[in-house]
């Protein structure tokens, strides 16, 4: 089994935080889509980087390239046609940036203190796992953050994708050496969900005139 390159993986995963942040904060939905595309490519790269240890991950990388980097951005691109500007979010950029830094620091602290809970500290993957998990959690929480604070339906879909990426990143960092991990990763792609959501959002745009989810409160109580 070849040695994986920690530097490469660190670099890639840290870049993921930047892309996530960009995807969440970009006011233009198409810019956000491009940021997400960048992140998808990063995940593919990470998977390839891990594949020195486990060649099955290449299949996942290939699938991810198709689904995450091609299909989902395409769907998003199509869905944002004609309405590129996002509905004003609940929390603005400055606050978000502060929160993000705090979040990242907290996750770092947490994973570095409790990494032993998730991976065997003696194993070869432990070094990268600590950072990767921190990144994965951060991406996950950023996804949640997007879902919770962005009023635009399409932005929440992007948030959902971020959630998924976070889970995938943690999956690959927790158990990179097992062949079944690749299978699990491939099986859990949410591309169909994204397609369906965007389809329904299309209907919503048609009926409600916008994709502001705050208007979706006719059904209550």
């Amino acid at each position, binding site marked *: 089994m070849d040695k994986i390159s920690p530097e490469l993986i660190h670099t890639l995963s840290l870049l993921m935080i930047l892309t996530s942040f960009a995807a969440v904060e970009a006011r233009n939905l198409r810019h956000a889509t491009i940021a997400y595309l960048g992140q998808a490519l990063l995940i593919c790269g990470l998977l390839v980087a891990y594949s020195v240890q486990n060649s099955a991950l290449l299949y996942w990388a290939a699938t991810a390239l198709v689904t995450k980097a091609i299909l989902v951005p395409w769907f998003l691109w199509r869905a944002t046609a004609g309405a590129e500007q996002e509905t004003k979010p609940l929390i603005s950029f400055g606050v978000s940036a502060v929160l993000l830094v705090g979040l990242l620091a907290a996750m770092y602290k947490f994973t570095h203190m409790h990494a032993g809970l998730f991976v065997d500290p003696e194993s070869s993957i432990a070094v990268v796992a600590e950072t990767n998990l921190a990144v994965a959690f951060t991406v996950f929480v950023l996804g949640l953050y997007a879902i919770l604070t962005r009023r635009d339906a399409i932005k929440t879909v992007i948030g959902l994708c971020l959630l998924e990426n976070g889970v995938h990143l943690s999956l690959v960092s927790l158990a990179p050496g097992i062949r079944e991990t690749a299978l699990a990763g491939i099986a859990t792609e949410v591309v169909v969900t994204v397609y369906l959501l965007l389809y329904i959002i299309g209907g919503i745009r048609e009926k409600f005139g916008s994709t502001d989810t705050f208007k979706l409160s006719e*059904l209550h109580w």
Partner: protein
Amino acid sequence: MPKEVVSIFPALIVIVPAAAALLIFVLGRFTGWLRETLAILGTAGALGLSLAAGYSCLQGEVLTSFSRQFYLDSLSALMVVLASAIGFLATVYSLKYMRHEVQEGGLPHTTTSRRLTAFYGWLMLFIATMLWACLSNNIIMLYVAVEASTIASGLLVAFYWDKRALEAGYKYLMLLTVGITFSLFGCVLVYATGASILHSGAKGLLLSDLRSVAGQFPTTTVALASAFLIVGFGTKAGVAPFHPWLPDAHAEAPTPVSALLSGVMLKVAVYALVRTVSMFFPGFAPVAMFLLALGVFTLVIGDLMALAQDDLKRMLAYSSVSQIGYIIMGFGIGTQPGIYAGLFHMLNHALAKALLFLAAGSVVYGTGVRRISQLGGLAKKMPVTSFCFFVGALAVSGVPPFNGFQSKLALFVAGAHAADWWAVVIGIAASLITLLVLAKAARSVFWGPLPDSIEQSHVREAPLTVTVSMVILAVLCLAIGLYPRAVYAPLKAAAAVVQTIANSQTVAEHGDPLYAKLQSPAGPTR
């Protein structure tokens, strides 16, 4: 120990409706009744196969397919029989009902035929994915199947494609996907930890193997994983406070879909929850205790919310929340009688709530009105529907001699045995509220004078295919209530499965109070 038999049945149970779905999508738009025929055939096939498989399970076998990827034990057998039976009845109900809805519902920009094709296709897929979820032995595939059932039903919820339906559909997909992603995180944690303990990725995926090592998981992992699993699958099951998608989706979906959502999908989610979380029960007892508290909380919230509803279907949906609370409470009690009661109530609620939704749909079919306050005096015009609704309401509320009484009683007895008195008292009080809510709704919908706002001549009893499903369910409710022994054996076997998941180490040393009592019904054993 049951012996494992390799069989094609478990796979076929999923494949038959899935194939029907494919055929419907491909061929459905060509001829008039082909899609309906295919749908009936698909669900009937699934039902037949499930019953056959369930029979062999009762003989002490466990059926597996595809190197244990599909795994059909008594618990799964119970679930697939339930799911396919209600699926079949819902399909039968749809035959006339959906034509009526599509033709008179004022659906824009699509032809009737395309709409119906889409409906039956997605319906079959929905049923297939739910069956798959019940049969999967792979923890990741379990997640995938549950998510797939969300996807398959997403368009069904938004079927009417008007403002309300779209809103419901969006919330449904969004909230459930977020929730399910949580459970994915939980599954990944369990898988990764299990795999490292088992030193095998393949085994780390299989629930049947994971359960044997769950006791060795680190505590924080257990807490984190259970939290994610409970919230994740709990969202799908409609556990409070993760339930808000439920009334919207149930109310806006076409009636057969509501019946399936409430009757089957919630149960599948509970099944997934139990399959995964119950592996922590023996080593980590507080998990079960937490589930109990969560169940009680859910049943109270559901009942209180149901009290405030004026929309018939929303009211039923909130009542489903509360009944899910009872089921979770049963599992949370954690003892054999508790799990038995939980499963029993799951079965009964599936039948009764499906019946209620179908009857509510029949009311909407006849009157076009869903507001309880705007309805009244329908008993004369719609006697069968009225009768069925009353049966369903009494069954859900747990009034003898209907089935809900038997399971609620078993539940309270189990709770009393486990000395969870607070839960029992709250449960009984809440079941009174349920009774209040449902009986009140039944009274104001079916009795009193017919309001002027409803056109007299328009109101009529639903056609035969609509009523026959309701009558079958009503008869089942009554039959199980009168003769609960009929379902005792399968439920006991299913409970034993959960129990061995949950309690593989302790069951032998404590003995089993339930079965001990069976042998000597006269005297107490403790």
